[in-house]
């Protein structure tokens, strides 16, 4: 049994931010949670799914984020509390539905939880969900620490019910994935009943049909809801101030930057000079609260990650308040004091603060920096961003790369999001030539495949993961087939949502809660769409390449499913299919005829180049025993023996 559910009121637990969010939702009495996996958000749904075995809670990994929002909305419409969870890009996907939802309004409390990734630590963009709060015209809450992550979550549901609309609760990587102490509250033992009422008057928010029309009226209503939220924000306990009555500088911050700012003030030894206004309610801004603080000083430093969202909103407000509070000087991103992209850290904030205070702040002893750089250069091995040992993607891209090179018609691959995104790097033999959103590889390929009439005669290939196929690959494939686009779609089927930790998807016979579920068969779907479909195992590159060559020469839409379970999957973990070994006598090493193909080009981390003996060796600890290197060794020096 998990502490997440069993933990009693008043207990203090070490919780990851995402667990704190999940506990907050449980304390709010959430009934339905839906999401699509994406770092750093995934653990929220995973934790709730785990708890769902102990209480009446419905949790699902939806096919994509838009559907997750729709599933959660249905629960709200039926009077239940619900949430939908996704990473920042997910909000882009869900936004079409959400833009309608915020007009129609909600009933049971409904919270949208996007987890942003400043610095794009595990993302291929640095987009932010905050701007969506403004676009959707909904309140935005941003917890500044782990306790708040839990407490604010509960409050978010109450707020949603108060204004009868969606509330955005935004986390970031350093909050979702770090851990801290959280004092627990009560989990209510209620038994909410679902009932969808629709027989009331069309404008009745609780009894009528739930539609976005009449739009002008509903839009006005939506703005009223926002005003109401703003009034509640004025007295929110999640907006706090610490510092002197009349600080030299007022530092306004929120979210993960709160902790950096606190530390920066300490690092600058500036407690007496700097006041810290931490906002938990960042849109719409609580105007009266801001007015009160603006009156106390003339210099404002705004500390937030990525774009100047709060800074710009504050500036608009300050201009409106100027007749009463006077003209203020703002420091932040637009002034160049705080970087406009990437993650922040205490050093960056301290440097900015010191600069404004006229102090000097050296984040590190320069001597230490030099020494550390030297040590790293001489003693640390160079490690590229690469696929795991035994990863089927390395094998798949080996074949895709080689077939396209042999084919020699300047063919190329369009990709999208998954571990396979890394194939634009040398670890995937630099095979991907376009890389965009979920499912975009096939959509972009579908477009390329229609450029024949303008002279494009390069073979067009897309890659798509199995989870991505269901998420948004299917419409792209349908488009390509309907428009007779000439493409070969490679589905890299590693039997799970591999990158985020093997969450289930519609192709698997299990759902998020661990229940048996009907598995949708990808080849059958593709055939039904009208594609020519082949299936192969990328660990058998010769056969794979033969099939791929053949498909590449055929006109129309072809689908090649490269199927091999992820090396890290629970089913495979620690089990080697083969014991690998290198015959030192046969290994050609650096000689003409090989020149270190396995360790210089293929570069599976399980292979090591022995600089003394000038031969390749197997790192038995790391090797996953997939056998692929035996298939590529040009001299047959690498052999595989079935593992016992």
């Amino acid at each position: 049994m998990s502490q997440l559910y069993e933990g009693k009121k008043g207990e203090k637990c070490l919780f990851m931010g995402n667990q704190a969010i999940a506990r907050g939702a449980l304390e709010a009495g959430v009934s339905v949670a839906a999401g699509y996996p994406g770092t750093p958000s995934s653990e929220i749904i995973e934790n709730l799914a785990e708890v769902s075995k102990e209480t009446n809670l419905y949790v699902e990994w939806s096919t994509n984020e838009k559907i997750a929002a729709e599933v959660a909305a249905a629960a709200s419409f039926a009077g239940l509390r619900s949430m939908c969870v996704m990473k920042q890009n997910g909000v882009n996907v869900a936004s079409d539905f959400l833009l309608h939802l915020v007009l129609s309004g909600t009933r049971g409390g409904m919270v949208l939880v996007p987890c942003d990734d400043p610095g794009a630590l595990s993302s291929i963009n640095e987009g932010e969900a905050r701007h969506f709060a403004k676009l959707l015209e909904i309140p935005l809450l941003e917890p500044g620490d782990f306790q708040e992550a839990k407490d604010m979550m509960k409050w978010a549901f109450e707020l949603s019910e108060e204004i009868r609309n969606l509330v955005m609760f935004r986390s970031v990587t350093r909050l979702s994935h770090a851990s801290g102490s959280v004092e627990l509250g009560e989990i209510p033992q209620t038994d909410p009943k679902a009932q969808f009422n629709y027989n009331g008057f069309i404008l009745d928010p609780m009894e009528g049909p739930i539609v976005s029309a009449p739009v002008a009226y509903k839009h006005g209503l939506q703005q009223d809801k926002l005003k109401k939220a703003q009034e509640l924000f004025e007295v929110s306990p999640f907006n706090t101030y610490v510092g002197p009555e009349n600080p030299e500088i007022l530092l306004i911050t929120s979210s993960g930057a709160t902790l950096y700012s606190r530390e920066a003030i300490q690092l600058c030894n500036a407690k007496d000079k700097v006041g810290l206004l931490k906002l938990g309610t960042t849109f719409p801004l609580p105007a009266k609260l801001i007015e009160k603080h603006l009156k106390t000083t003339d210099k404002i430093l705004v500390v937030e990650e990525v774009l100047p969202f709060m800074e710009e909103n504050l500036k608009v407000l300050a201009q409106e308040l100027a007749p009463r509070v006077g003209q203020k000087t703002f420091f932040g991103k637009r002034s160049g004091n705080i970087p406009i992209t990437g993650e922040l850290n205490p050093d960056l904030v301290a440097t900015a603060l010191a600069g404004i205070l006229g102090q000097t702040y050296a984040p590190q002893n320069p001597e230490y920096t030099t020494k550390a750089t030297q040590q790293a250069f001489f003693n640390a091995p160079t490690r590229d961003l690469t696929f795991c040992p035994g990863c089927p993607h390395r094998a798949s891209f080996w074949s895709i790369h080689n077939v396209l090179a042999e084919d020699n018609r300047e063919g190329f691959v369009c990709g999208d999001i998954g571990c396979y995104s890394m194939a634009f790097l040398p670890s995937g033999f630099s095979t991907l030539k376009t890389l965009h959103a979920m499912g975009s590889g096939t959509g972009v390929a579908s477009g390329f495949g229609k450029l024949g009439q303008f002279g494009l005669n390069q073979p067009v290939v897309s890659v798509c993961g199995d989870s991505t196929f269901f998420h948004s690959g299917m419409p792209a494939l349908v488009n390509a087939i309907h428009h007779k686009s000439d493409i070969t779609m490679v589905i890299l089927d590693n039997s799970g949502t591999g990158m985020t930790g093997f969450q289930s998807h519609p192709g698997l016979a299990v759902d998020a809660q661990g229940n048996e579920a009907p598995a949708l068969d990808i080849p059958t779907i593709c055939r039904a769409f009208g594609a020519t479909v082949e299936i192969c195992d990328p660990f058998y590159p010769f056969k794979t390449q033969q099939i791929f060559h053949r498909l590449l020469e055929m006109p129309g839409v072809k689908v090649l499913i490269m199927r091999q379970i992820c090396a890290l999957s629970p089913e495979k973990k620690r089990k080697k299919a083969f014991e690998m070994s290198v015959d030192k006598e046969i290994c050609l090493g650096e000689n003409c005829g090989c020149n270190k193909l396995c360790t210089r080009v293929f570069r599976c981390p399980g292979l090591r180049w022995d600089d003394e003996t000038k031969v390749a060796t197997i790192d038995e600890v790391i090797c996953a025993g997939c056998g692929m290197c035996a298939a590529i060794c040009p001299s047959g020096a690498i052999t595989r023996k079935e593992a016992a």
Partner: protein
Amino acid sequence: MKLFAQTQLLEDVQGKGLCVGCGACVDLCPYFTTYRGKTAMLFPCDRETGRCFAYCPKAEVDYDAVYQFRTGRPFQGTPIGPHIEVFKARAGEKQTECSFQCGGTVTALISCALDNKIINGAVLTGSDERMPKPMLVRTADQAQQCAGSKYSASPTLAVMNKEAKRGVRKMGIVATPCQATAIAQMKMNPTDKEDFEDPVSLVIGLFCTWALDARKLEALLEEKGIQGTIIKADVPPPPAEVFVVETDQGVTEIPLSEVRKIIPEGCSICPDMTSELADISVGQVEGETGYNTLIVRTEKGAELVKMARSQGYLVTENLDGDKVHNLAQASGNKKKRALAQAQEKGLLNTPDDAGRAAMRMSQDALNKIQP
């Protein structure tokens, strides 16, 4: 011979469009492959010297060194190259009739060499639909399947390299002049490989004025609506100016002007029409369809011809003097044209400060070719 590796090979040959797809660089290592008549590089290799560059017939070929090695004398620039005898020939009664290009001489000689175990296998060029398909054959029956000219440039030497790697020795190879040049360079063990063993014991060279880009030929035949299985392709002597394609569904003539457009660029600098570095060279006889011209160049070649004749594989006759003269003239003209082209492109005897050459030869030989 100046030695370089993959980087320079790519720059000099692929980069300048000189690759004729002979297969000399293919399957020596994992980096060069061939697919549907085109040579491709899969990954870069950072070695400073490599067999790929050393064997390539379009990269730094030292004519004096390679002729010295194969014939005992530096390159002389004579029209049909070093030789012992010239005949006209055709397959004898021992050779089963099949679809020969002319007299069936090549098939007869290969059959004789295989039957007498002079060679363990022969690397020949068959067809896979409309693509040339080089293969190692072990019997005279299999050899017959490959009879007839293909006209498409074929990566025949890829098979030689692959089979050599697998340990096959005493191979016979039917080679175009560029391929015969590559084989001759291979035989010199230019990279001083310690464990080098020459896997080739017989080279039968083909006369060649040019080959055609295999993929472009396939596309041209498609464009011309030529249906069915190709039985034979031929370029009748002037003034015909056509390329004749015979399939099981009929005969089509394509104007040579259209066909010339798909000749690989690399053919234009080739000075060799008669495969001068082979043991035996075989081609057409002007105006006689059932015969071949046969040039015996080495002792080994002479012995095989003698054996083939005595065992009934081959019939030889004297070739008329004016036909030898005309052959020499045509061959001499190809040399002149090619070397002029190479000079114009800066690919002949390129000074060190101007980069690398495709070919190097003595001024004496050049003077003989271009008086």
